[in-house]
């Protein structure tokens, strides 16, 4: 665990937290979905850096495409803006 890896993961964690806050506070639900996709993709990179490749591959494959698409279908069926 060298210091380089530590610095990289610290930066990524900070952005994950910012993404989570954006996800919660966005009025436009499309923006919330995009921010949660960012959180998931960065989380896959973090699992990879922490040397858990099995978890990382599952996270990347499920969260990358399927979850985003299902959320999008749901806001298409209901409505896009939160009041």
């Amino acid at each position: 665990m060298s210091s380089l890896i530590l610095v990289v993961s610290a930066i990524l964690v900070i952005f994950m937290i910012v993404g989570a806050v954006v996800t919660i506070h966005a009025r436009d639900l499309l923006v919330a979905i995009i921010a949660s996709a960012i959180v998931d993709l960065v989380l896959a990179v973090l699992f990879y850096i922490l040397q858990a490749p099995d978890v990382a591959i599952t996270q990347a494959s499920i969260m990358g495409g399927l979850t985003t698409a299902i959320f999008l279908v749901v806001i298409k069926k209901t409505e896009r803006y939160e009041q």
Partner: protein
Amino acid sequence: MSWVIAIAIIVLGVVLTLIRAMLGPTAADRMVAVDSMTTITTALLVLLALYFKRYIYLDIALVYAVLAFVATLAVARYMEGGL
């Protein structure tokens, strides 16, 4: 030492795209940033596989390369009203 510079440059790129994804005025801007972020991250994962000296870690980069654009396509189809 040569590792540190290459990885640092790429991580700086990821950070720039993530800042644009958090700032971006419209949802399209954010999605453009996320799309570029996934491609940059693929390159980062390939480099990190070399850093950890594990051949099998390339599979995760491959999953990223294959699946990350599904999310982009889904968001694009939602935005043009075809989902």
